């Protein structure tokens, strides 16, 4: 009932909101319903939080005048075709010339061509696949580090574990992002001198991993690296438990940093490794929130769940626009685009500096779930906390 009331309120607000003026509007189409809504919300909430915070701090200075930011967000229902149409509408009908992105690589691949077509910038924190940046587009910028390097720090850390894992199984979903991850990881495995025991692509949204797990078990693999989606990884871990499959280490591209994911698994989430481009530490500072720890608390207080790197990446996108608009002294899309390309500042999420293709580079910190909490294990400078390794058998926990 409460949801319904707030929904009707939301509709009314949306209908009224369209009339305000003298503000800078950022536009986005995000997965607020449909299968990706679970992650899509990080982007909506991250964008909103950043915009509100920047506005409270006086907004964005354009040519000496302070202007407020505003967000126009549409729900693309996890449908990429609808997302494309909504972006065209944002650009042409709502006259919005600064775009924020949707979640997930394939959605970014599809929608970034709208930005390119109408020559307006899109700064997005939802897609990391190299397919996004290999088309020579000039208007797409991304704040997720390269998909090909997601497992770089993990494999580096694996070399320093005792006893170091020797055989690896690589499993990946067949979508744009995970295929990119697998491509990069294959090279990393080879460079580290590890043996690939299994290299298997599976269907996005697969729910049955029993056959794959049986093969992992029978090949007696030391390390299992999985690039996939949260639902798949949930199933993978649950089925690994029920089939008593416990490699020395397993690591996942997504899920581990997300509170919802850990809650769904409860104790079974323990020992799972993952990675994140962002951790809510006090040492990560920016101009608006102070530091990442404060941001985490404020975010949790407002939305009732913990932010992860998706949310922080979304915040960085908004901050990038604020910085770029001030540097350009204009909201002209061409000028803002050029300013974005030259950005170099410390965001809440980390240092933002785009390479010539439009992507930033950030190291991935290896993390592990220990007693239900995410613990940073390994960063650029070596081990941070002690990893729990090797993973104990399921019946010995």
């Amino acid at each position, binding site marked *: 009932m409460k949801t319904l009331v707030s929904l009707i309120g939301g509709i009314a607000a949306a209908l009224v909101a369209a009339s305000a003026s003298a503000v800078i509007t950022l536009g986005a189409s995000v997965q607020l*319903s449909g299968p990706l809504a679970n992650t899509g919300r990080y982007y909506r909430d991250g964008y909103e939080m950043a915009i509100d915070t920047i506005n409270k701090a006086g907004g964005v200075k354009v040519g000496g005048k302070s202007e407020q930011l505003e967000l126009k967000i549409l729900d693309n229902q996890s449908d990429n075709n609808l997302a494309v149409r909504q972006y065209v509408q944002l650009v042409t009908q709502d006259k919005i010339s600064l775009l924020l992105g949707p979640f997930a690589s394939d959605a970014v691949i599809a929608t970034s061509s709208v930005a390119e077509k109408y020559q307006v910038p899109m700064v997005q924190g939802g897609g990391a696949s190299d397919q996004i940046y290999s088309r020579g587009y000039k208007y797409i910028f991304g704040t997720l580090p390269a998909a090909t390097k997601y497992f770089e720090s993990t494999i580096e850390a694996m070399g320093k574990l005792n006893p170091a894992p020797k055989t690896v199984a690589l499993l990946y979903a067949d979508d744009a992002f995970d295929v990119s991850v697998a491509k990069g990881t294959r090279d990393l495995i080879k460079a580290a001198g590890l043996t690939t025991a299994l290299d298997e692509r599976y269907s996005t949204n697969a729910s049955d991993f029993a056959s794959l797990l049986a093969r992992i078990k029978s090949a007696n693999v030391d390390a299992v690296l999985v690039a996939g989606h949260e639902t798949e990884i949930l199933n993978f871990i649950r089925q690994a438990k029920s089939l008593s499959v416990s490699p020395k280490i397993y690591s996942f591209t997504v899920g581990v940093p997300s509170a919802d994911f850990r809650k769904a698994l409860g104790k079974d989430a323990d020992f799972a490794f993952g990675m994140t481009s962002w951790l809510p530490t006090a040492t990560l500072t920016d101009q608006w929130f102070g530091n990442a720890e404060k941001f985490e608390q404020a975010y949790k207080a407002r939305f009732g769940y913990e932010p992860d790197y998706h949310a922080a990446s979304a915040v960085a996108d908004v901050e990038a626009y604020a910085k770029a608009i001030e540097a350009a002294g204009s909201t002209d899309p061409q000028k803002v685009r050029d300013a974005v390309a030259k950005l170099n500042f410390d965001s809440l999420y980390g240092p933002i500096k785009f390479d010539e293709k439009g992507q930033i580079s950030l190291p991935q910190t290896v993390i592990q779930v220990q007693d239900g909490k995410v613990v940073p294990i390994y960063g650029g400078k070596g081990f941070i906390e002690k990893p729990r390794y090797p993973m104990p058998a399921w019946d010995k926990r």
Partner: protein
Amino acid sequence: MNRFGVVAIVVVVLALLATVPWIASPSIIQFGISTLLMAVLAQSWNIIGGYTGYASFGNSVFYGLGSYGVAIAMVQWNLPFGVGLAFGAVLALLFALLIGLPVLRLRGHYFAICTLALAEVMTAIVSNLEIAGRNTGLVLPLLRGDALFYELSLGLLALTTLTVAYIARSRFGFGLIAIRENEEAAAVMGVDTTRYKVAAFAISGFFTSLAGGIHAYWITFLDPVSAFDITLNVKMIIMAVFGGPGSIFGPVVGAFLLSAISEVLSTKISTLASLFFGFVIIVAVVFMPRGLADLGRRFRSVGWRYFAENVRRNRL
């Protein structure tokens, strides 16, 4: 209304629609493109579903083949768009002939489910095909020319509708209708049911594939799930059924109306748009199962009782 009057109105409406790219805003044009293509899909479905009575839930296969025809030709082989369209159409026709023959022997729900399964199979097969970019899909070159896409879509809709109008008045169309109304009776009266059904399936698939091809080049990105999208099947059927299956203009009107409503909703109330879409389906099926065309015909004489009568007629 006489025949000349209808033709005159259609020509005027077409001429007006053709001027849209010169007078309307880009977002209207892009709404126009997606609506026109949707209308082509509904109208194509009308041939196999509305006239022949075979509720295909697999027309998205044709759409996907058309899309991939264009994408593979342009991305993998560097061929021009036109060649891609032709390639996609050939794929669709081949599919209709090869698969249509066994599948069109099934009736009712079995046919519907089989075609639905075909859409699933195609999604699964294409996501394993290297040349189609597997499940990550293909990115097509960018063309800044929405006016062109608009006129192409409009032309395709006109052509499809003209074909339907011709079919409705032809011996071929009478054969299809006879099959829809009673297939066994049609056969003993001399209708070559198999050939007619396959032909209807192929014509339906031909136009659907062209719509897919245009859409792929316009949207510049394509992956198996969006190319063979199963909800697309449902959408085209809803639009055709809402407008009036087995009529010449019903599906077009249905597509225009429902697209407009859902476009307005998805910008104004966003998340709730699909909820509304679900309710529209339910309400429409309960109160006007024969579509707008039937409503238009009978409402004048029956009045509001029309809706109650539909319920009375179809309930248990």
